[in-house]
């Protein structure tokens, strides 16, 4: 036994086990990479090499005969990461305060609107930054905002975001309390693929890029949800809000808007 060598062609255990494994692997590969792909009538597989590449998961260009549908509107090009624009410097906030003078007409002297424009005081910086970018690129259309952002640099937008994020979230004008949180805010509607509003927008949790909604004007929130539902507004990343708003009933839209509008 001591003279027996394991890794040797003379050892039947070695030859049998390796042969068996190789035969199974090769047979599985032949079936999975050549035979099965070529049975697919809809996969547009040209030859053996094409079948192998397809089954291996190599990206292939779409066939030239097929039209690629392009949206006839701009979508956002902003990429958000969780730790973006945190810890702004005092200089940045100061510059933002100066730049913000031109925003006061609608958004209030300290970022609290009396005109059903969004309250910006205490909003997450990446939310403000992203909207400014989208207004400039045209991903979000607004006759009022578009001329105001055309001459803003990237740094200006970061400064504005830093300034508004720095302002305290003071309660502005609030109508009477809308009562307990509606079902759509706490539970969503799983059967229609609607996550709870609160899972991203505060109440339960906050997710990167989701706006702080509590205390925003209900009319504004309602208008935005309707715009998402109709496709008028289309600057949400990966269509997240459009997919949600489209599934919401008008009653759910107004319930959610009223609830968030009445929160301190």
């Amino acid at each position, binding site marked *: 036994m001591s003279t027996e060598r394991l890794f040797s062609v003379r050892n039947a255990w070695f030859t049998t086990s390796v042969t068996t494994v190789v035969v199974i692997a090769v047979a599985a590969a032949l079936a999975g990479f050549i035979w099965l792909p070529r049975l697919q009538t809809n996969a547009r597989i040209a030859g053996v090499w094409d079948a192998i590449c397809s089954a291996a998961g190599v990206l292939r260009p779409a066939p030239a005969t097929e039209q690629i549908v392009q949206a006839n509107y701009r979508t956002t090009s902003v990429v958000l990461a969780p730790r973006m624009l945190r810890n702004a410097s005092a200089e940045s906030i100061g510059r933002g305060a100066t730049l913000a003078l031109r925003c006061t007409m609608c958004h209030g002297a300290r970022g609290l609107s009396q005109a059903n424009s969004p309250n910006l005081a205490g909003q997450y910086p990446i939310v403000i930054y992203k909207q400014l970018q989208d207004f400039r690129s045209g991903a979000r259309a607004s006759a009022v905002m578009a001329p105001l952002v055309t001459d803003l640099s990237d740094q200006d937008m970061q400064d504005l975001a830093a300034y508004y994020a720095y302002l305290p979230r003071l309660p502005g004008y609030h109508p009477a309390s809308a009562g307990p949180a509606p079902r759509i805010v706490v*539970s969503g509607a799983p059967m229609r693929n609607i996550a709870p509003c609160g899972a991203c927008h505060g109440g339960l949790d906050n997710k990167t890029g989701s706006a702080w909604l509590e205390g925003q004007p209900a009319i504004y929130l309602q208008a935005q949800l309707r715009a998402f539902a109709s496709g008028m507004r289309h600057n949400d990343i990966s269509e997240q809000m459009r997919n949600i708003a489209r599934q919401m009933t008008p009653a759910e839209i107004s319930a959610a808007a009223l609830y968030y509008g009445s929160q301190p």
Partner: protein
Amino acid sequence: MLNSRRLILAHFWLAFAGFGLALLLGEWQMFIRSPLHAWIGDPEWYYRSVTVHGTAMAYVFPTLVAMGFGYTITEAALKRPLVGIRCAWLGFGLVAVGTVTAVVPVVLGLASVLYTFYPPLIGNPFYYIGVVLVVVGSWIWVALMSINLYLWKRDNPGRPVPLAMFANVAGSYLWAWTAVGAAIELLFQILPVALGITSTIDAGLARVFFSWTLHAIVYFWLMPTYIAYYTIVPRAIGGRLFSDPMARLSFALFLVVAMPIGVHHLFMDPQVGSGFKFMHSVFTALVALPTLLTVFTICASVEIAGRLRGGKGVFGWLTALPWRNPIMLAVAFSFVMLGFGGAGGLVNMSYQLDTTIHNTQWITGHFHLIFGGAIVIMYFAIAYDIWPHLTGRALVSFRLMRAQLWTWFIGMIVLSFPWHYVGILGMPRRMAFYDFTDPAIAPQAIPVMMSVAGGAILVISGMLFLAILIRGQRAPRITPDEYRFSVAVHEPRTVPLALNGFGLWLSLMVGLTVVNYGFPIVHLMSMPGTAVPAVIVGAGR
């Protein structure tokens, strides 16, 4: 000859304490999601609980059982003291510290990412560091198993390695290689993001690495159970092991075919090509080979026991079996659950059939039936079998043990069969809230409530198990005989070189891993623009 009793007991007690707590969480999760309880209003609590339940049950509990049982086998089968007892305590300490490190951020709501991590979800770094510590602690055990076997072989040249030790070391090697996938994912993908060094992650690649671990880890959990089938059951019921080489071959085959199959968890993932999915499907099917070998050998061994006890005829030996012996009961229940679970698994591993039940409660039902049922019930049997040898005190009440095993079996069936059923109806898994007022899913309310009842039976059974062990710690002292393993019908005097070591099987395991995972990993790593921004859990709090 068990010298390291305190070490082994520490492993088992920590394992079972974690099991007891996680069991309660599991039942709570089912209860609050069911129509029996109003919606708790905040999914966060549910996901915290699932994360702790999964982390404790999947990483900590079976790993500690395998480690403790491994040390028992090393001393009892090799009949010599464990080498490296200090390192063993260090490994235990790492697992214990790692568990606490991982659980604290989850409880604080900073890492509700579930035990499968789900990147681009990213939690608090301490959660992942804790899991890494648990794995590092278990790798110390792997090294010790290997060293102890090596030293024994050096002193006993040419002698066959005792079957229990052969199987034990096979399990440890399987775990060492299995854990590499998740370790790469944690160290090179998730932790850099969690620590704030990078902000994006290639979630598709991370899922491929995790699948490397995710399926073979199940066979690592299974190893103590299979070792118990082969080396405890025949002895405990007064029979003989039908075939020693067949047992060795099963464990060797597990090494080879358990690894290159994890992509069947990614059948719905677009980043892996269909050819590789098919290959993994084929190798998953091959797991039937060692499984059926085991079913045959154990049934034959049990039949030997039945015939030695005077059973006659085609089925007469069944009635002659010692059904009042808890080990007999456990192995029977284990086989029934393995049968149903395995049949369900055939659906999961099939590329086409899987589409129906992928990510539904069917999957939850499947792995609870296999792991929580077939595997864990044998962990109970192992504990009952070695407890007197560890504590020097007798476990007196067979009645309690039988009641515990019966309730576990019934509870697991009542829990998991309705889950399979609602899974076929399309009920998704891992959701915090189901709106049972919706007519589309209202009919699922009854099976869901049945599952909750099954879970309640499991809680009773689990508590009974802990009570039996605690009672055993306070029973009158005895002097147990030497701990023995099963004897084969033909005890091997020599075994083929291939079945006395792992060189051949480990080479095939690594080779097949490279064949089945090499291209998908290299391909995904070389593809530009696949990283997505991480989603930090609990960032808003």
